């Protein structure tokens, strides 16, 4: 019982919520860059939050259904179809053996998540199925999906179909812009070496606009804008968390993402909250952001409110 990959697209990776508790042997977390869209796919499908889905970057994935199931695509805006018939995003759809699911290329946002009822059954390594290509760990042999890969799954013939109302769909990048505010806000907790950056540099950092560049991957996203160099020289390598904002000698900030190395030796001005790394991962080169300082209480409030909203948002029930 399985799905088969017909076309993998540019970069399609098996992901669960990530690999935790393995930093002591040098393994990073991996997991969905946009954990919000990933969690929505699983909620819409009545799955456990950690069920395996595929993160599709920029679209292009085609799957052959070999076992009856339901699927749902969330995240980046793109066309999806089953046997050539268009289907809605953020909604579950029934598929039967022989159907072909096709994802187009994303028109806004970058990362899409395709989940199925019950999730794909991928053997975990080090407690997780999240694929980290750099480490050759997780997914299918630690690699991105390739044509003819077989993705095992259980058969599901009955499921209450659900959809997230369009008014609740997240907006990515300039799609969500209005005249007052076109930047995405990245909430940053000053931390790590923040005290080594002088006050002028810090003021410049929080009052400037930064642009997303194409020099970005699952390890980190390079931003471009007014330089905010750190006067400190060489420092000892230390543990790096998700969202840490590292500033190398050129003064251009890099936001570290899911596949970051677990230790590193560049100065860091702090870390943006995980919810904002999720949003950042949907932005495209040329999109702009700015940093806003928050304290731990504010970060906690933002997360709690988002969690309450996620749980309370009603889903539409769809007829077959």
């Amino acid at each position: 019982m399985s799905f088969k990959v017909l076309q993998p697209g540019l970069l399609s990776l098996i992901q669960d919520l990530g690999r935790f508790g393995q930093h002591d042997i040098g393994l990073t977390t991996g997991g969905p860059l946009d954990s919000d869209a990933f969690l929505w796919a699983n909620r819409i499908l009545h799955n456990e939050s950690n069920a395996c889905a595929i993160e599709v970057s920029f679209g292009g994935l085609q799957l052959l259904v070999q076992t009856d199931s339901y699927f749902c695509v969330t995240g980046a805006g793109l066309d999806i179809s089953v046997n050539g018939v268009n289907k809605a995003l953020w909604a579950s759809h029934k598929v039967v053996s022989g159907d072909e699911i096709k994802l187009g290329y994303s028109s806004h946002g970058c990362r899409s998540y395709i989940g199925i009822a019950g999730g794909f059954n991928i053997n975990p390594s080090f407690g997780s199925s999240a694929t980290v290509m750099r480490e050759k760990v997780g997914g299918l042999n630690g690699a991105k999906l390739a044509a003819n890969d077989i993705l095992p799954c259980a058969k599901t013939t009955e499921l209450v179909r659900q959809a997230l109302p369009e008014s609740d769909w997240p907006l990515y990048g300039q799609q969500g812009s209005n005249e007052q505010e076109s930047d995405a806000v990245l909430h940053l907790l000053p931390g790590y070496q923040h005290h080594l950056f002088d006050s002028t540099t810090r003021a410049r950092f929080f009052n400037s606009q930064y642009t997303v560049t194409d020099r970005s991957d699952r390890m980190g996203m390079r931003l471009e804008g007014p330089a905010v160099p750190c006067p400190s020289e060489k420092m000892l390598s230390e543990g790096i968390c998700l969202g840490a904002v590292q500033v190398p000698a050129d003064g251009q900030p890099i936001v570290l993402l899911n596949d970051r190395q677990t230790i590193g030796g560049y100065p860091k001005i702090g870390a943006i909250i995980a919810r904002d790394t999720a949003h950042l991962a949907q932005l495209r080169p040329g999109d702009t952001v700015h940093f806003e300082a928050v304290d731990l209480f504010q970060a906690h409030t933002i997360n709690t409110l988002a969690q309450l909203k996620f749980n309370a948002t009603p889903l539409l029930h769809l007829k077959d």
Partner: protein
Amino acid sequence: MNTSQTHIEIASENSYIVYFGDPDSLQISPEISATIAATCEQIKQRFSHRLIDLVASYASLLVIYDTNLCDHLWAKKALRSILNTPEKHSENSGQLVKIPVFYSTKYGPELALLAENAGLSIAQVIDIHSTTEYRVYAIGFAPGFAYLGEVDERLAAPRLSTPRLKVPAGAVAIADRQTAVYPASSPGGWNLIGLCPTPMFNPEKQPHMPVTVGDRVQFFAIDEPQYLSMGGLLHEL
């Protein structure tokens, strides 16, 4: 140097980083490393299931906790209380792990270079590298990559200006005053001096690594037949 000095800094919404020693000039020292290893144990006990990950490094400890199970106020209080009541430990804590190395100018192309730079014979370089007791200061860069220090000053060498595209698994290498065994084949810019037949990272075996942060490592020289009999592989560089 006051090694008992510690300093807690925010790292992220669910992590703190603890710095050990003088915050204005963090140092590499066996004493600090031993303190960090002992603190790790205390944190594991106190945080228990609230702990997500711990990253010990040269002079710092990143503590990532589960905000569904505790908040930052609890986490900071727990850390403060642990740091205020350090447990007695010796610098010789941690297990001593002996690791075989087939030192070779053929499979460790920089071995001769290091000898030349130091004005030593190759035998002397091997002797110095294998009689020094190293500490595992940090694990990272790649799965199973352990940073061992400190290498005798005479053998310290900067990274290659052009990193190799492929360093074989098991390559024993030196960069600055650190030495390491490459756990898997990967690109790398360290100076290669030999090959180690012991897998440094084995996903199929528990524990996955023969060493952990805070352990001590000593290398011992083996010859080519011993290397092969221990399961070592030879690749042309």
